[in-house]
């Protein structure tokens, strides 16, 4: 299986996690030790220090590790902390970044088109995926964003211990460009019906490391009873395609 983790982090957190990886090399080694060959990665500085710092560090520190694909964090264009939208997209292209993260709660902005419109309007035709963590059960901002930007490729990483099917299934049904990371889809029997109803292409394998045990979400996918092609797509094929389709 060619695993490609859609959500793993390296870097030192302000409050250290017991098994965090301080460097890109440590993360590459850890993922390799559990059989995961590639990962789309963030740096702790993305959300704890400042996106501009994290974006620079993730590029510099993954340079020697081709198995780690860097992502960048966004901020609302209106404050121009990340430059103009055009300048930001040009810098992304130059750095080889093909996916973005939004941290609206941590960075204190609204995840909506009033706030992010100029940037999201540029991401939609370029098919650049935007990742966002759904804090607790706060799905309303996700629903609002998708209502106003239905063509956005949005990847949601859930965080709640309680299953969120009643929140996300209606959104999966309405918005074909909404995807979910599997890292916290750990309700028993949750994956197969999602694939049967919405398609394997809507799910991306993720570990959510270091917030979750790095290998915990391997077995639920490998032995969920889905056809091998669907498992391979979720394990890594979908993410490879998603990144390849991003036109930056």
């Amino acid at each position, binding site marked *: 299986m060619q695993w490609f983790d859609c959500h793993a982090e390296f870097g030192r957190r302000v409050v250290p*996690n*017991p*098994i965090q990886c301080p460097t890109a090399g440590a993360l590459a080694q850890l993922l*390799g*030790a*559990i*059989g995961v060959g590639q990962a789309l990665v963030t740096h702790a500085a993305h959300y704890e220090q400042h996106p501009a710092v994290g974006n620079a560090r993730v590029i510099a520190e993954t340079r020697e590790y081709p198995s780690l694909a860097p992502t960048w964090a966004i901020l609302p264009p209106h404050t121009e902390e990340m430059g103009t939208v055009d300048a930001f997209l040009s810098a992304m292209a130059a750095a080889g970044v093909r996916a973005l993260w939004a941290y609206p709660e941590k960075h204190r902005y609204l995840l909506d088109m009033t706030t992010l419109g100029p940037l999201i309007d540029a991401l939609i035709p370029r098919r650049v995926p935007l990742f966002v963590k759904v804090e607790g059960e706060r799905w309303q901002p996700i629903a609002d964003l998708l209502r106003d930007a239905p063509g956005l490729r949005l990847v949601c990483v859930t965080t709640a*211990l*309680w*299953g969120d*099917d*009643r929140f996300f299934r209606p959104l999966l049904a309405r918005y074909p460009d909404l995807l979910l990371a599997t890292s916290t889809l*750990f*309700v*028993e*029997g*949750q994956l*197969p*019906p999602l694939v049967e109803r919405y398609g394997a292409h809507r799910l991306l394998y993720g570990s959510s*490391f*270091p*917030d*979750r*045990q*790095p*290998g*915990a*979400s*391997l*077995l*639920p996918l*490998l*032995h*969920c*009873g889905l056809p091998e092609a669907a498992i391979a797509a979720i394990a890594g094929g979908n993410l490879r395609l998603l990144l390849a389709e991003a036109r930056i």
Partner: protein
Amino acid sequence: MSRMTPLVEAFLAQGKLAACPIYDLHTHPDRFAGIYFPAPDVDGILRTMDRCGVAKIAIAPHAALLAPVEGNDLTFAMLAAHPDRFLGYLVFNPHYPETLDALLARSLETPGIVGFKIHPAMHDYPLTGAAYQPLFAWANTHRQLVLAHTWADPRCDAVACRTIAEQYPAMLFLLGHSCWGDFPRAIALAAALPNVYLELTAAEHVPGFIEQAVRGAGAEKLIFGTDLPWFNPHYTLGCVLFADIEDADRHAILHGNAERILEVL
């Protein structure tokens, strides 16, 4: 360094392993209003067990937690139907103390009942409250299991657990969720008192917890649990398999400790 020990590789390849049968001592079959579960009924639970190599589970169905008088009937029915796969906890709701005597009597005469499940948070009643004490005294006399929901919550945190565990030293006390959020004190408690065990449901998701618990309390004090159907047993199993511990520890957590405890009941 690779974490692919022979045990881990075998589980990854097959999804289950006859040489390592799993005993899950914390499950809640049945529907639940707050979550959509695809297959929480008896047939679904059995299919899950077969897929994941789970030999036996100890059940406290949601009905038993939420229907104070008649809810345990589902437990009896499930035990009668599948005595080879299910063990059972009876649920005691301390707001209905008049139900306790009948439950205690039935527990001893019903094959497969291994003890009681209590939920101080859901029932909003402290572990140290008076209504629980007759149950604990009985468990102490009969050396029975009590699985308590425990959390970083004054009603059921490690301080409250220590009070009860010291007062009833022969009661086999499973700290459900290992006092989630109050881990250091829960680990210290399990290390100090022979009758206290750390049950892993949800706690094992927290990176580093299993390693800390094994080093602090010993692998022989950790009990595998999933809240099934809340958590996919394969996810929980993955937490144990990929923790930085030895295969002997994994065997103890996944089945050895439960087998040892169930033998003495």
